[in-house]
């Protein structure tokens, strides 16, 4: 038997099932779990105890990685309400938003031709971050008032920012390499 794999992550960490999570409480509870369950605490013990410790720690690690990340937490909350989505096949149907995303992608692509790519990249990163945090607080409100359709749409939109941020990071790495 594992730590009960059906156990709700929020329940495990003693948190209420809401998007807004006190990261400090989360982190300190996480450390308490690790202190009690980590394989390093079972070095001299039987193979069996070590094996179970690995499984328990892995479960706590998984729960923590979901709860501390905004997008993963949003996805998980929707799943709890049976409103899960498939990130690979579903997308937002908001035409205006999609247009804006296409523009954003073009702006990322055009960074190479900017007179000062580094500064332009920073500017873009800043803009994206703000749009992203607006979406995050929108999701929080929508989910809290039980509007799952709207919340799901916001989560789908958040996915775009994950991709944009990754693209910016890749660009940044290329810029770093060019500086060598």
């Amino acid at each position: 038997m594992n730590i009960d794999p059906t156990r709700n992550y929020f329940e495990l960490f003693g948190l209420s099932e809401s998007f807004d999570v006190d990261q400090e409480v989360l982190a300190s509870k996480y450390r308490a779990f690790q202190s009690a369950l980590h394989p390093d605490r079972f070095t001299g013990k039987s193979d069996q105890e070590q094996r179970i410790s690995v499984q328990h720690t892995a479960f706590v690690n998984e729960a923590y990685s979901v709860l501390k990340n905004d997008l993963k937490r949003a996805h998980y909350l929707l799943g709890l309400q049976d409103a899960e989505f498939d990130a690979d096949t579903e997308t937002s149907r908001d035409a205006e938003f999609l247009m804006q995303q296409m523009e954003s992608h073009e702006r990322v692509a055009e960074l190479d031709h900017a007179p000062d790519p580094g500064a332009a990249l920073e500017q873009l990163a800043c803009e994206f971050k703000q749009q992203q945090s607006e979406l995050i607080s929108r999701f929080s409100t929508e989910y809290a008032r039980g509007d799952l359709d709207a919340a799901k749409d916001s989560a789908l939109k958040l996915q775009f920012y994950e991709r944009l941020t990754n693209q910016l990071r890749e660009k940044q790495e290329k810029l770093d390499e060019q500086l060598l």
Partner: protein
Amino acid sequence: MALLQISEPGQSTAPHEHRLAAGIDLGTTNSLVASVRSGVAETLPDAEGTDILPSVVRYTLEDGVMVGACALEQATCDPLNTLASVKRIMGRSVDDLATLQGYLPYQFVDQEGGVPQIQTVAGPVTSIEVSSEILKVLRTRAELTLGGELAGVVITVPAYFDDAQRQATKDAAKLAGLNVFRLLNEPTAAAVAYGLDRQAEGVTAVYDLGGGTFDISILRLTKGVFEVLSTGGDTALGGDDFDREISAWILQQAGLDAGQDHQFMRKVLQAARSAKESLTNADETEIRLEHGDQIRIELRLTGEQFERLITPYIKKTIAWCRKTLREAGVEPSEVRHVIMVGGSTRIPCVRRHVEELFGQPPLSDIDPDKVVATGAAQQADILAGNSPGSDMLLLDVLPLSLGVETMGNLVSRIVERNTVIPVVRAQEFTTFKDGQTAMRIHVVQGEREKVEDCRSLATFDLTGIPPMVAGAAHIRVTFQVDADGLLSVSAQEKTSGVSASVEVKPSYGLTDSEVEKMLKDSFEHAKDDMHAKQLAEQQVSARRVLEALRSALEKDADELLSAQEQQAIGQARAELEDACEGGDSEQIKQAIVKLEHASETFVERRMNRSVRQVMRGHRVEEFEQD
């Protein structure tokens, strides 16, 4: 006068046993062993008072195997049998050697696939066996110094080591007869050495530039917990590259080509190394070199010229630092401490570049050659249970993403890099053909999308899948990475509940049976020895199991077990105790399995109670002490 020890009622009557433990830094160029003695972690010197053991092994016909300085001295006159820097080929395949061979003047056995073998006068050897020779010397040194057998060791590896390289290191330890408590990342070990001394809190960067590898790790220290936020680096970048750059410069200045003359090349490399070392404290240095009757080289190398030669490498390390900081989500200015590890960080120009990036002078008050072994010794001491009051805990991450091969040679990611370990992830697969009963899963490690751009780790052959129509079987494959960063795989068909059996074929490493065979071979001329060793090993594990169970039962049997359950455990326990008295290692082994089976529920109940207690917000200390 000796005082009588009287224990509290209900407590163990056995006095707290101090278990001997050591930390080992198995380096590319040098290795060290350290241990905590009287509360202080320190590196252990050999009989001559030298701490550092050069990671050099020489195989001879007459004198057996030589390790360390005595082997290094012969490197020039016996280059092909004197093996240095084998860490660079740990966990590497024959195919990988093409990119490395130019730098390693050994004769590899001509072979197809598998673990590369180096030809020596004493026969072919693998890097695993060479490393185990180094470990054996360190083990003997520690056991002589500490006066007893080691209960276990912590061995450090570069944070960036992949699964194959970690497994190879563990196999080498097994061959050397060492019980490995934990493989610990070198930067984490360094942070432990500094963190415990200073009670440092906040974000720490560990910049580790050794002989053959470069690592950068970003860690967060909070109340005794070390969390690795991200890690990056290059397993083929280090001080050896500087030596080669200087060597190339020497040859170019002298208008010479070393060609296939291994002896001459060794001389040039040695001259390059000593030039590099003298430039640590001087602005310029003389290089003098003679070879045969024809060659006489006299050159002057300035610090400026040296910096020009090595700057491309240092800039590469700085780019890695930026990348790794970004992955941790940390700005360079947020870093509270920068720790320097590795002999190459003594080079002034390296320190300058690091200081520039982080805007603060890096810490180096612990000898950068010894800091890793020192930290490993502290962790080993804690894992051995010698400092029960310590709440230090190290949380490490997976250095490289794990994935499986899918259609079209593409990689499907299972676990992303920088995920905290241990980690368990399940993925479902289905059959392609009607009646299919077997399936092959190819696991790779790396960040690229195509299979050929990642490192192949192993293929797992699943057999015993119940025959069904194509697509009907749902095989749930579970990938588990343990606290050492090592992968294991299990599989189950979901509708029938049948466990598929998994056979692992490591792409580059040794299979378990090959390691067993090597162990047996090393005892080939002493069969009794082998039996005695197996018996001793089983007795040690039996005692460990019995002791752990005894203290757990004393505390919790009444609370967690019914009388009937207690009786079942008691019986299995008595059987194991009886088996221990006998001389049959196989019987002991079976009795251990039986006892573990009998106490499974008990162990799980205890663990679940721990979970509940944390959930209810009890302080950890209340139930942690066993």
